[in-house]
């Protein structure tokens, strides 16, 4: 095991970690405001789809389309859950189903295929450093936002005790809506990266990363830096499998695919066995305020 091998592993980890980090951060900001965000998987998929659709007009257009789609999907989700007080879990799952259905539908309509888009040559380039730096920076920024700004203070208060926040004149719905929008923006970066990295769109290409990111968020104790750390751990496991497989270890594809999800289950079980040690969800998580 040489230094260059380890370096390569580190690079792969960071590269694979981007969607986990961004979605876990998106989940963190939303849940700290009290909105359960099962929609992460859907947000990843929709922004990836939009990025692929925008790709023919260049990389910038692809990125903008992805961000716009993430924002729009988050707006719908926020409108339903925050303003209309719809069940957050049902809506999150529905957003996933919508993203899956819509992406397959549009794949068929636009590319005439049910499984994947053609290669998107416009996305050639070395994007990895940009996205990786961006993801790590986003973690730091979110940490600062929550801890050192008035908006962050209000966001935390709204997630813990919305009635108290409202009694002090904090516009609870507006804060929650902004948190969900920010969540959509952050998560969409992960989706955009999936397309930029693979240079094509594949049906269900998020592959459960949105759900795994939820687990990473829980492991991170609903804290941005914790979420980044946990997301990198999941990415490390995936990177290890990918690299070992590439080196000829007889590891079948399905096993590599199964690994992140299986690992998530193991980790959830371990967390239960070890106890939660002070990390607990925001007190008003999942409770709409009327």
């Amino acid at each position: 095991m040489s230094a260059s091998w380890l370096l390569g592993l580190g690079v792969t980890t960071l590269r694979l970690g981007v969607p986990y980090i961004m979605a876990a951060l998106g989940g963190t900001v939303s849940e700290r405001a009290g909105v359960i965000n099962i929609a992460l998987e859907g947000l990843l998929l929709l922004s990836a789809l939009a990025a692929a659709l925008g790709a023919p007009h260049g990389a910038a257009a692809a990125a903008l389309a992805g961000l716009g789609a993430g924002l729009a999907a988050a707006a719908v989700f926020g409108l339903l859950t925050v303003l209309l007080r719809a069940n957050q879990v049902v809506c999150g799952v529905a957003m996933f189903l919508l993203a899956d259905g819509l992406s397959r539908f549009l794949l068929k309509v636009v590319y005439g295929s049910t499984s994947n888009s053609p290669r998107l040559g416009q996305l050639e380039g070395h994007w990895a450093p940009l996205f990786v730096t961006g993801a790590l920076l986003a973690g730091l920024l979110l940490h600062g936002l929550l801890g050192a700004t008035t908006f962050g203070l209000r966001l935390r208060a709204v997630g813990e005790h919305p009635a108290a926040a409202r009694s002090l004149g904090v516009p609870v719905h507006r804060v929650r809506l902004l948190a969900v929008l920010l969540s959509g923006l952050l998560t969409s970066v992960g989706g955009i990266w999936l397309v930029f990295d693979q240079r094509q769109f594949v049906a269900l290409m998020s592959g459960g990363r949105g759900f795994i990111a939820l687990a990473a968020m829980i492991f991170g104790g609903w804290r941005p830096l914790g979420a980044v750390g946990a997301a990198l751990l999941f990415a490390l496991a995936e990177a290890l499998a990918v690299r070992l497989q590439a080196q000829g270890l007889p590891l079948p594809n399905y096993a590599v695919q199964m690994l992140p999800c299986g690992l998530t289950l193991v980790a959830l079980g371990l967390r239960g066995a070890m106890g939660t040690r002070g990390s607990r969800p925001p007190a008003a998580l999942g409770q709409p305020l009327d």
Partner: protein
Amino acid sequence: MRTTLVLRALPPLWAALCALAAASALTLLHGESPRELYRLLWAGTWGSAYGIGQVLFKATPLLFCGLGVAMALRAGLFNIGAEGQITVGAFAAALSGAALPAATPAWLALPTVLLCAFGAGAALGAVAGLFRWLAGAHEVIVTMMLNFVVRAAMVGLGGHVFLRESVHTAPVVAGAELPRLSRYLPALHGSAANASLLLGLLVCAGCALLLSRTRAGFVLRTLGSNEEAARAAGVHVGRTWTWALALAGGVAGLGGTNFVLGYKHYYEDGFSGGVGYMGIAVAVLGHNRPLGVLLAALLFGTLSQGGLAVHALVPRELIDVLTAVVLLTLAASQPAVQRLLQAQPGARREKEQDEKDKEGP
């Protein structure tokens, strides 16, 4: 009472309207005429005996999965895992059915195979229940992870058990096959509707009886309505979570019989086509009540079959979008209706009471 009924009917109507709008918009986007879409949709479903048979065939697994989601929801658990559960159920049914000696009589083969399907789904459900009980892990994440694990595992296992050059297993023995309904109703000739539907109706009735008449059902409903009161009344919450999810998983697992025992007689990769996820919408639309789930399954079965009927016009993936739209609009309109219901005279007492309670002590 009558206003209550009208109000309760509003969300489904509203959802139907939104779905129609979404379908029309997407069809126009595709450059086709919505009118033609609806004509094809009707002709391909309730417009002919064959269509009706196909609707029933499509509705059958939705009924099982819808019940699987609904039973868990009555216990306060969100079972997103019906997709994985019906997959392992079908897989277990196919393997056990193929492993039986060829001459096994139906009275022995069918119960064995059904038990295997139920058991496989139940085991998967129970895993999620155990995670919730012993590790405090949210069942949404766990069941979703299990779906992905099952998906990948089926690819892996398939490599060992699928017949050469195919993506399906060996057929089950004749004794384990469920007859087509067209054997008794010749009008349905050609459609794949089979006795699995009757099994579904039995299970549906069983779930209804379990919920309303038995001690187990009472415990399950109590837990779903007020967890702390259930705990105080002596309900073992973790154990109940586990068996509720096992039951839910088992019921969803039985849904695999429709395809494996009643239609193709083998397990085929990708047979489910997302019915497990659609089952969530079925349960929500059916208010988690067995009868409601049955009606909702028929509705979504119609959509599902309709998707195939209009496939020449628009991609059938349109139906998956509509499922999500229905789910979103239902979820969005239910709180508003709840508020309207409570604003009614008679129902306001509770609100007033809450206010009064705040006064004391």
